[in-house]
């Protein structure tokens, strides 16, 4: 009942005309960046950070949530019509949806993707509203050792799951942890890794790293390996709608997709690849005509799309309750919380109920807005692809420069942007994932703080780190995550 009351209060916040406008801006922006190549939700939220400091935290997070959800909707449109999955969660949609479009069933594919995303997003958001307050209570029993163990679990899970290899995932993670150490040590006041450059004493700004690794690295990488093949957008005739048979073949995959996506999204190592692949496998097993899979089966679009969107709602659970980001976008949102001086966790639910419940309610409203924006207007969004690539990437650079120059107007920051952007380029050249670096950078200071607190309390006894069952279990889970793939390698 308390959850229901809190949610109603959240709707009172989210339904204010100004907040409805922010939600619409976020959803439209999210859909647009989902359609456009080279820009993802993480980069968009990063670029919005300097602008949103002038807004209230509630307004800013309503925009960010709209961008996060909207990018998933926009990504499925390009997956279906031009066979380019903007993010890993849309790979399966591209596989089946594009085949459907080639067979003249593009409208049905777009419709089942949009409605499935709406259904799963709404179920996921409802589960988020119910689960989040309960999970956040757990954090009350957390001390320094538990928080440190939680950070270690986040580090290992993103390094193992995201990206191509564990070793390169760990390289990215430790690079991020290293960047987090630059600046004055908060406990002793000693400068670390600042090399007598005064501007580095405050540390490396998260915005600079995010913009450099995502935007500048991408600009350099695509410029060096640009595809000259023309994009073939498949034309869709008639309204974006489904037949009676499409409905009857889609509704069960939507529900199954939501049931698979949400719990996996909540897990530290969840991501969007595993739930979409799992949903695809489940749908193939349950399908009346499994031979259609691989040639444009509607169940193969409906299930994975639903799983993808439910996983996004799932990602919000550890972020809001424990301050634990499990994806690059969640890491950027955590940085945004830090920018406002807010700490996700149980105190956020107590001290800022207007913000938390307003954002959760806005997710329901945003989902509805996205359905309206995407179903009848899919053909309009696709027109964004007509922006010439040179001007699109030139524009990304201008907005990136606003984000960095607007922060401190320092040439050192501009130089850091270039250096870190070059590292982002090299990461792409060697398939090193970027998300672990971001999570290392954002969670690294918290991990060090809690480790040093725990060690100070125990007067230097390291067994304090495994003295509580929760901390021991979290560290054991982290160890298992690291050990399992290594065991597979040795067995081979």
């Amino acid at each position, binding site marked *: 009942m308390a959850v229901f009351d809190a949610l109603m209060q959240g709707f009172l916040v989210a339904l204010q005309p100004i907040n409805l406008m922010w939600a619409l801006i976020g959803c439209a922006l999210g859909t647009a960046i989902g359609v456009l190549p080279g820009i993802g939700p993480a980069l968009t939220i990063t670029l919005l950070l300097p602008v949103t400091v002038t807004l209230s935290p509630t307004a800013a997070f309503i925009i960010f949530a709209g961008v996060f959800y909207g990018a998933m909707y926009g990504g499925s449109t390009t997956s279906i019509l031009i066979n380019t999955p903007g993010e890993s969660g849309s790979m399966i949609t591209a596989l089946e949806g594009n085949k459907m479009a080639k067979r003249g069933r593009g409208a049905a594919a777009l419709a089942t993707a949009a409605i499935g995303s709406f259904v799963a997003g709404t179920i996921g958001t409802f589960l988020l509203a119910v689960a989040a307050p309960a999970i956040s209570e757990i954090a009350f029993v957390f001390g320094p050792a538990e928080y440190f163990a939680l950070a270690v679990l986040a580090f290992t899970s993103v390094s193992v799951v995201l990206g191509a290899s564990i070793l390169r995932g760990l390289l990215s993670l430790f690079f991020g942890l290293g960047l987090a150490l630059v600046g004055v040590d908060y406990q*002793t006041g000693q400068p670390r890794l600042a090399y007598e450059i005064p501007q580095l004493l405050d540390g490396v700004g998260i915005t600079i790293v995010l913009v450099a690794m995502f935007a500048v690295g991408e600009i350099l990488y695509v410029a060096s390996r*640009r595809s000259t093949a023309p994009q073939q957008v498949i034309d869709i005739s008639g309204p974006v709608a489904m037949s009676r048979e499409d409905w009857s073949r889609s509704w069960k995959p939507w529900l199954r997709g939501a049931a698979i996506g949400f719990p996996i999204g909540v897990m530290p190592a969840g991501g969007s690849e595993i739930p979409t692949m799992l949903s695809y496998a489940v749908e193939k097993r349950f399908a009346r005509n499994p031979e259609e899979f691989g040639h444009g089966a509607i169940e193969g679009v409906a299930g994975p799309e639903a799983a993808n969107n439910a996983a996004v709602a799932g990602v919000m659970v550890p972020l809001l309750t424990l301050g634990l980001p499990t994806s690059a976008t969640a890491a950027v949102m955590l940085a945004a919380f830090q920018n406002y001086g807010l700490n996700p966790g149980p105190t956020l639910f107590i001290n800022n109920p207007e913000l938390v419940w307003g954002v959760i309610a806005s997710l329901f409203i945003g989902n509805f807005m996205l359905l309206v924006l995407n179903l009848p207007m899919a053909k309009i969004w696709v027109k964004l692809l007509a922006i*010439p690539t040179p001007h699109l990437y*030139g524009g990304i650079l201008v907005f990136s*420069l606003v984000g960095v120059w607007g922060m401190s107007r320092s040439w050192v920051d501009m130089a850091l942007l270039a250096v870190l*952007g070059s*590292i982002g380029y090299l990461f792409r050249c060697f398939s090193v994932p970027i998300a672990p670096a971001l999570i290392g950078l954002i969670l690294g200071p918290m991990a060090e703080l809690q*480790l040093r607190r725990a*060690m100070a309390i125990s*007067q230097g006894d390291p067994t304090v780190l495994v003295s509580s069952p929760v901390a021991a279990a979290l560290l054991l889970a982290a160890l298992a995550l690291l050990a399992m793939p290594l065991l597979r390698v040795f067995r081979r």
Partner: protein
Amino acid sequence: MEPSKAGATASSAKRSWGLPLLAGFFGLAMVLEATTLPLLERYTGLGSGFMVAFVGTALLLIAAALSWQVQNGIRFQPESGEGVDETVPVSKAGLALAGLGIALPIISIPLAGFPLGAGLAYACVTRAYGSMRLLRDVVIGIALASATWLAFTKLGVQLGPFLPLVGAK
């Protein structure tokens, strides 16, 4: 040769040591820095150098493991992505021009202001992406950067004077 799950292939072709060298460079820099900092403190347990030493050592170990992989013929494949063809040879001209677009603002924005500095960077990037109409792109870039400067200044983001070279605020 079939690419493995790791985005890497075992090959006898030219070995690429870039990644282990990058990891080794950062690891060494951190370990050297850690030698100037206290690892342990009497009352607070861990000193300011502990984490620096830990991260540096980890990076050195990763560099060693990556070197072992390269030595055994593993080659790290470039990432696939939208608008990217990882099978084509690297366009050095494209990379250099885009690099210029990113390096130029370090000097041009502090000296010439955001609209001109960012506009020129815009033109460098469009040229790197194959646009041949440089003058038009410079004009578009400066117009876009000026509009951005105006909009963001109104929103309260400080982007400095409009054109400091001629004293325009």
